């Protein structure tokens, strides 16, 4: 089944004309047909459009031969419903956008197209990327391909589930507090959150502008490196994108991590850490030692404040970012007798409860008289958290932690308890506050349960090369990434 293969496998065979882009695409479409009624990773997709792109890719390959400069030629990549794709629906899994169709491509989408990728489908997510389970989608919960009674994680739950269930070759997610790494961990995929500014955010519907980052979810680390190389770079349309040159990431995957210094943050041994998860992560650390890494304990003293800091900064920015969804220019409208009534009716009907909760929280922390106590203080703590990491990276090359405190939980298990849901991001949130990079790779399964467990590796700003090298060395020494969910 071609849909089960990695980008690097498929492109090698495409280059040798053993297979066609149409065959790859058709195998993904067949798989969607077969399982997506149960997984529900896709909100919508257009098979005819995907096949047309595949045929165009096949013609290009036939005409021009394989071109190394277009490393994703003929590869179907599925997109989280938060990135603008020209002439595709853009809903952010919310009712409020109605029948909105984007008139333009996000920069990341342009880059994927330029690399030859087939842009296919809209993947489910928590509404406006707010959540950790996809239960906040206005269009139903995506299921974990390893256990359909469980959540796939979130907010990029559809992106992880689609890759895990082989409904696409790779996908694009976004990560504001763990939204790529956490679902990748829970679904047994590789999920990469690049350094803030590494990939342009132009065309990404903002949740929290200073934390959001686009990244790939893939079947192995090499594919993540390949995708990162395509997606990265300065963009004149995003003032916060960074000008650093883009390394040839796949070329840095040497498999050699001898003498590399790995730090274990002592603050991450929290009471809620599941013993199965801890066991797998400990084993992974031993594996790294076996590969020649030096492991030591480090301290990130402000870790305890990360969740609170995050929920102040993220909600404050969100309260402004989501103000534009007002029923005036596009999307859904519930009319009123004056603008104020139109706004409250439209937003009342259009946003789900978690989005409303965060808008209210964000509005509150920015209010006159509360700003200094909440937002301003949170910004200061954010600096301390960033400094914690920068200090740690003076001593070690990467940090290793569990990606999540537990494996995938059951649908509905935490839906009524937002605070407990927020705590499921406890290991991933600091990375966004610090603006550094992080990756989750599979490191085992629960027993019993057979649910995937993720290992998180964190690197310094622009440290993706090292991050990927460690992740790849670890991955290649295990078989976890080769396991497929029992889904027929």
């Amino acid at each position, binding site marked *: 089944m071609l849909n089960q293969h990695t980008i690097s496998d498929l492109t090698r065979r495409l280059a040798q004309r053993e297979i066609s882009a149409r065959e790859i695409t058709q195998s993904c479409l067949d798989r969607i047909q077969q399982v997506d009624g149960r997984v529900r990773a896709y909100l919508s997709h257009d098979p005819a459009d995907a096949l047309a792109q595949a045929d165009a890719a096949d013609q290009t390959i036939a005409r021009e031969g394989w071109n190394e400069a277009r490393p994703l030629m003929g590869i179907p990549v599925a997109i989280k419903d938060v990135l*603008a794709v020209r002439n595709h629906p853009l809903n952010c899994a919310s009712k409020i956008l109605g029948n909105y169709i984007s008139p333009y491509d996000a920069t990341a989408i342009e880059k994927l197209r330029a690399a030859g990728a087939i842009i296919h489908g809209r993947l489910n997510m928590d509404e406006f990327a707010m959540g950790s389970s996809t239960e906040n989608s206005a269009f139903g919960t995506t299921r974990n391909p390893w256990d359909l009674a469980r959540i796939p994680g979130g907010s990029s739950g559809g992106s992880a589930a689609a890759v895990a269930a082989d409904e696409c070759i790779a996908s694009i997610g976004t990560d504001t507090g763990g939204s790529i790494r956490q679902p990748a961990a829970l679904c047994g995929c590789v999920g990469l959150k690049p350094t803030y500014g590494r990939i342009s*955010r132009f065309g990404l519907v903002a949740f929290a502008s*200073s934390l959001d980052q686009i990244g790939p979810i893939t079947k192995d680390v090499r594919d993540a490196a390949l995708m990162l190389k395509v997606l990265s770079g300065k963009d004149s349309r995003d003032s916060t994108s960074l000008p650093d040159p883009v390394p040839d990431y796949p070329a840095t995957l040497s498999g050699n991590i001898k003498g590399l210094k790995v730090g274990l943050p002592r603050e991450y041994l929290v009471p809620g850490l599941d013993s199965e998860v801890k066991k797998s992560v400990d084993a992974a650390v031993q594996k790294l030692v076996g590969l020649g890494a030096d492991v030591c304990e480090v301290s990130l003293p402000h870790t305890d404040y990360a969740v609170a800091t995050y929920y102040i900064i993220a909600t404050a920015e969100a*309260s402004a970012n989501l*103000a534009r969804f*007002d029923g005036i220019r596009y999307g859904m409208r519930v009319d009123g007798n004056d603008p*104020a009534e139109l706004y409250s009716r439209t937003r009342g009907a259009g946003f789900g409860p978690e989005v409303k909760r965060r808008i209210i929280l964000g509005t509150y922390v*920015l209010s006159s008289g509360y700003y200094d106590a909440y937002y301003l203080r949170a910004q200061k703590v954010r600096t301390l958290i960033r400094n914690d990491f920068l200090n740690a990276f003076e001593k070690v090359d990467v940090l290793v932690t569990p990606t999540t405190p537990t494996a995938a939980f059951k649908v509905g298990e935490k839906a009524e308890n937002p605070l407990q849901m927020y705590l499921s991001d406890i290991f991933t949130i600091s990375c966004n506050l610090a603006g550094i990079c992080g990756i989750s790779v599979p490191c085992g399964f629960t027993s019993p349960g057979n649910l995937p467990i993720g290992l998180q590796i964190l690197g310094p700003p622009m440290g993706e090369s090292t991050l990927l090298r460690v992740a790849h060395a670890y991955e290649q020494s295990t078989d976890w990434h080769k396991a497929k969910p029992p889904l027929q």
Partner: protein
Amino acid sequence: MDYEAVIGLETHVQLKTRSKMWCGCPNQYGAPPNTHVCPVCLALPGVLPVANEEALRLTLRTGLLLQCEIPARAKFDRKNYFYPDAPKNYQLTQYDQPSTRNGHVEFEFNGTLSRVRITRAHLEEDVGKSTHFERHSGVDFNRAGVPLLEIVTEPDLTSADQTHAYLNALKEILQYGGISDCDMEKGMVRCDVNVSVRPCGTQALGAKIEIKNMNSFSGVRRALEYEIPRQIAAVRRGEKLVQSTRRWDDVAGVTEEMRSKENAHDYRYLPEPDLMPFEPAQDWLDNERASLMELPLARKQRLMREYQLPAGDAEVLKNNRALGDYYEPIARLSKNPKLLANWIINNLQARLVEIMEKEKTEQASLGLEPDEMKFTGLADLKFKPSDLLDLVEMVARGALSSASGQTVLAEMVASGKAPSAIVQSMGLAQVSDAGAIETLCDQAIAQNPNPVADYKAGKEAALNALKGQVMKLSRGKANPAMVGEILQRKLRG
């Protein structure tokens, strides 16, 4: 008890940039609704702003012209409020770290120099324009995202007239600096006024009342002429004024309360995470400083000092920058800069007006709208400024009469020929030969016995009639001063 007003202004000025503040859409007035829009200025999902460098440069230049400090670092903030003309439902502005601050403007008022302190001039974005129809409303987003400078004063103004004078001085500076066209009719300048009253001689400020919705400088003056006595009367009646916002009704000529302090907006400012803080580079600032133009008032004062111009002439040359720029390079070469100014302000301007009237009629008959018409200006004149200088020098040294000078100027405008060539070909050179003038004077005295008798009887004015006769006999070429002298000598003798 006597009361005085304390007035401060917030003036919004659209910057003269080619494109909008955050996107490449044209910054251009008058296009059909929603034709100068793109995903960015419509705030479609996913877009990000990118700051317009020209707008940042014009902001710094304004700061320098207003004698402001330029902080090393400025940033943008989101000002949150919901309104259909605000596409993002927040406005990007500079809240606590503006691009410029702590400056002042000096201007003439009532024969003395007034100085108003400038709190800050910061950069923000304009919003769309709402139009209300019978059953619905529409928003035109062409204006949304146009760079807007907000210039805030300290409460240093004390009267409606002084406020009016400040606004004119500010406008003049901004036009001089190429910052804005300041076209009021196109909404390029808008201002809000803060006014309070207090007993004369006291220091504490009264309750600040903000007036909005004036769309002309005279509207500001009228609003203050209404509002100040209203507040004074209220205080005299023993009412306690409270901080509030009022709306100027231009038709009725009154202000009415919009909202009081309790209903004031909470804008929930937060730093704009989509833009990096702006730190102007030193060489950038140095360049800007080096290329800075002279302020209008300074120019007027210098024109009076360097060329001994009367205040009125210096004012005209200050007000009309092109005219001043035409004047100065030749004035530096002139022995008679006062006379030169006179010729430029009166004779040359009159010619230009004449030409414009003619061109207006012609172009109107071709069906052109007023804003499509093009007129001959100083730059289009066929002769060189140095030709005008030569002409005026000829008049000054008596080689040409003033009247003949006018004829020569008309010919210069028409043909572009040099004045000396025109004088020669038209035979206009002034006669200053005493012998020839004496002959003509004798002739005039002989032919006009009545004025001669009148003059001898003590009517001084009769001399003018005789002078006129001599000039007529010389066909305008006799040197008038010599004619007067010779006639007097002959009649007294």
